[in-house]
């Protein structure tokens, strides 16, 4: 009985010392993961995931506060990537916003009054133009987040879905193996 106690005490004290020491010695600070996650996110900065931009969402995921299936622009693809990165099971899209076809904003120069409101809204500075001047959107920079639509007082901004043309056309996945049973 007594010997038993001594044995276990000895054992646990040794361990306790090792662990207690290790706990301090190997403390880690910061989380390198956020960068990795952020790199996977589409950077549309649209906030549809319920976070103000992609980075915050990345942080939320890294902290485990947020699920991996909330980014519409990322699409299924993105969820799969995150699942792989984090070594968790893939799960279908869980957010409420639905993904849209890719689009870029287009400002109707005739109506634009140059109020600069959209400029302040655009998260990636894709809109150029100064006060009282007609604004234009650099299509190549626009992420299609639509954040510039609400503020425009004269509703001169429209979203053009990018139509399929020779440049962006893609080969289709060939469907093989007759799926329906013929017999």
């Amino acid at each position, binding site marked *: 009985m007594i010997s038993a106690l001594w044995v276990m005490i000895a054992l646990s004290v040794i361990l306790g010392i090792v662990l207690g020491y290790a706990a301090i010695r190997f403390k*880690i600070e910061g989380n390198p993961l956020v960068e990795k996650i952020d790199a996977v996110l589409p950077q549309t900065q649209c906030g549809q995931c319920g976070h103000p931009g992609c980075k915050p969402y990345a942080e939320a995921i890294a902290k485990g506060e947020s699920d991996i299936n909330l980014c519409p622009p990322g699409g299924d693809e993105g969820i799969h990537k995150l699942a792989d990165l984090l070594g968790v099971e893939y799960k279908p899209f869980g957010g409420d916003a639905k993904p849209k076809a890719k689009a870029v904003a287009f400002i109707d120069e005739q109506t634009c009054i140059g109020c600069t409101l959209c400029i302040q809204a655009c998260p990636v500075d894709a809109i150029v133009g100064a006060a009282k001047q007609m604004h234009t959107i650099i299509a190549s920079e626009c992420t299609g987040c639509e954040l510039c639509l609400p503020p425009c007082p004269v509703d001169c901004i429209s979203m053009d879905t990018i139509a399929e043309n020779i440049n962006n056309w893609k080969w289709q996945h060939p469907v093989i193996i007759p799926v329906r049973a013929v017999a």
Partner: protein
Amino acid sequence: MTNYLLIIIGTVFVNNIVMVKILGLCPFMGVSRKLETSLGMGAATTFVLTLSSGASYLISHYLLGPDLAYLTTLSFIVAIAGIVQFTEMVIKKTSPDLYQVLGIYLPLITTNCAVLGIPLLNVQANHNFIESLLFGFGGAVGFTMAMVLFAGIRERMEGADTPAIFKGAAIAMITAGLMSLAFMGFAGLVK
């Protein structure tokens, strides 16, 4: 010498800890989705397992002895838990990536049956120190080998036209079953 060799062969192939002894299945199932991951997990487990079978030998022979035998499980598992926790901290510090992937499974090494099972088997077969170490090491290598091969097959199966209800865990289980069927071929190699 041959005795030692037989222990290694025995633990790695004939009595493979996962396929034949059916131990350590949770990590075997959980961490075998990707080749790299399974390799990392295998390495970590090997480290812990070898260490703990050594430690447990010392404990059971120098601390416990026959009359405190009833403390075996308790003392072993505490020691193991300590070793694992230590390993976890070290990995967390040294390679965050590996830590990320191994994620929940590192603490679960503690609960990897093999990690307690092998020391207990060591006691049962009253191995000496070297034998215990080899037994632990061999078992871990066997575990890693099985898991890595399994991961290979699972990666290849990803593209397959598996029936919906069998996708994922179900077909993985069946694959493990067929693997252990194959491993029965080693039966009787080391009597």
